[in-house]
């Protein structure tokens, strides 16, 4: 029997009871749509969180945190050693310290965290201003939005103003000849800067300055480094981390955080997928029931087909094809429905976000591989539900079937 005729036979058989056919396919569609919808929510939320955590470039960057640097007193020599590690293409330093600042001419000062780093370091950190520009020269700073909020000022009104910064610098950040009193742990250094931009909230008032801006504060040591590798491949990153750790540094990698997030969301997705699976199991039982009833209704037909010479493998294929047809059409419709509803919700949320002047939101993401996986899975369900009726049809004696009333 030709495959084309087998398909036509199966589809015509199935379609001969239209209402039953529609309801059975609808059940599978809802089951598959439930899985797609719920798991896409899991993927979407994970994507949303990871997007907030990193940009794409971050996967090729290894962080060398401040804790170990402080103890070692990292300067240019350490940077040079790290630069010599295979696959390292850039090493960008940063230094953080506390301080107090006031707008020039004002009486009120505010406690602040100051971060000084190279332009590339800020790019690696995806730090950008929401108003104005990032500091370029040694006299420029950006202030986090926390400060204008704290003092109830318009962000833009700060841009162009001068500030006086009194920095509390740990002595190990300074050159030896600058240490006047070795018993004191910190030195107070001052400097004046011009505010050129406002960066998004850092949770506490923060001053962002170019690394060159620390010259007037006499800082020569760094509290953290960002090391860029020539590849984001896991093996290469591992080699880079090992090379840095061999120098005596500890390392952190954003991939670790992402892996943890992914792990948490994997569990979340499985739980959501299980809820959807319940609907699909109910649909599979419905399909099984439909096929079994259809088998009993068509027992005499099976007897006829066997008497006319239809072989057992062809009888088996006929029933399996019918079952696969139900599950595949239900699966495809379910994928379209599940994805469509998710995208519709994304559209509504994005519309609301636009109205509220915030970034658009997509909480449903359906990776294409997941869609393909679900389509294959629905075929597998079709095969399983069709297997028993198909086997029973094959085992039915032709003469018994012909006599069946």
């Amino acid at each position, binding site marked *: *029997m030709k495959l084309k005729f087998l398909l036509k*036979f199966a589809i015509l*058989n199935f*379609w001969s009871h239209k209402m039953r056919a529609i309801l059975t396919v609808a059940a599978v569609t809802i089951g598959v749509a439930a899985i797609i919808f719920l798991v896409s929510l899991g993927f979407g939320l994970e994507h949303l969180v990871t997007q907030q955590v990193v940009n794409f470039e971050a996967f090729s960057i290894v962080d060398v945190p401040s804790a170990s640097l402080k103890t070692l007193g990292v300067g240019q020599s350490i940077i040079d050693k790290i630069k010599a590690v295979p696959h390292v293409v850039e090493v960008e330093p940063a230094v953080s310290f506390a301080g107090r600042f006031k707008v020039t001419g004002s009486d009120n000062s505010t406690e602040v965290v100051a971060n000084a780093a190279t332009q590339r370091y800020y790019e690696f950190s995806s730090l950008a201003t929401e108003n104005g520009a990032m500091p370029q020269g040694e006299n420029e700073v950006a202030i986090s939005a926390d400060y204008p909020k704290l003092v109830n000022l318009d962000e833009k009104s700060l841009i162009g103003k001068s500030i006086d910064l009194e920095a509390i610098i740990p002595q190990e950040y300074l050159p030896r000849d600058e240490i006047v009193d070795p018993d004191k742990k910190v030195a107070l250094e001052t400097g004046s800067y011009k505010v050129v931009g406002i960066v998004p909230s850092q949770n506490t008032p923060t001053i962002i300055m170019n690394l060159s801006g620390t010259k007037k504060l006499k800082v020569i040591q760094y509290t953290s480094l960002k090391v860029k590798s020539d590849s984001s491949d896991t093996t290469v990153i591992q080699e880079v981390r090992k090379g840095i750790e061999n120098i005596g540094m500890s390392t952190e990698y954003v991939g670790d955080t992402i892996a943890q997030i992914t792990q948490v969301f994997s569990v979340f997705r499985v739980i959501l997928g299980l809820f959807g699976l319940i609907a699909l199991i109910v649909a599979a039982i419905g399909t099984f029931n439909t096929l079994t009833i259809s088998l009993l209704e*068509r027992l005499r037909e099976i007897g006829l087909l066997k008497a006319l010479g239809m072989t057992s493998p062809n009888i088996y294929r006929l029933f399996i094809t019918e079952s696969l047809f139900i599950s595949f059409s239900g699966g495809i419709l379910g994928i379209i429905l599940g994805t469509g509803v998710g995208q519709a919700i994304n559209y509504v949320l994005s519309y609301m976000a636009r109205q509220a002047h915030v970034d658009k939101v997509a909480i449903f993401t359906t990776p294409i591989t997941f869609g393909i996986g679900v389509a294959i899975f629905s075929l597998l369900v079709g095969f399983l539900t069709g297997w028993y009726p198909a086997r029973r049809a094959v085992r039915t004696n032709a003469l018994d079937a*012909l006599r069946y009333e």
Partner: protein
Amino acid sequence: MTHETVIKIDRVSKEFDLGLSKYQALREVSVEIEATDFAIIYGPSGCGKSTLLNTMTGLEEPTAGSVNVRGTNLYSLSENERSQFRAAKFGIVFQQPLWVKAFDLIHNVALPLLLNGANEQKAIQKAAEALEEVDLLKFSKHKPAEMSGGQQQKAGLARALIHNPWILVADEPTGNLDTHSADEVMGLLNKLNKYHRRTIVMVTHNLAYLPMASKKIAMRDGTTAENALDVNKLIRNEYQTVLGKEAK
């Protein structure tokens, strides 16, 4: 081909296991059917006519004995090989018209060819020719159930012959028909045998068709009866019993 033996049934027995007891449906039946034969198997109810016919087509495996169709021992073949052999060499007409409900008449008639892997377009073309021969082409797009019993049986005959089989077997093909339709079907069978040289094996209750047969196989209690007159008498008694019940 005139005296060629097409079917050779050699000491075939069939015993059915009924659980608590066993039923001997056929007892060492031996029959030979030649290529030009219009063989009619007849006998009273329960004599084993249909069992013999089913054994002949490979649908009912005998407990003992052999069935050879032009030199092929049917029961030495696997079940699938037997199905394929039946599909190619036999045309079957059933007592009650049986159809695939999802198909229209023309696809149903084309079914033996389609099951054999024929090209659908060619199969449909042949089915149209077969339906034309039995004057049913106008019903080709209808569902068979929409036709009368006689028309369905004629269409069944077209289906049985579409793949040009060696042997046409018919199990009481007129059993459910009115006299006019039954005569039409019998006329077609007779024509097929006389003018198209088709081998026909038919099971019937109706003694009126016996004159058409070139070979009469009378059966009684699971075996071929030596005294055909006894068999005729038994069948007539059966008719009278049925008619008596209907009269009451």
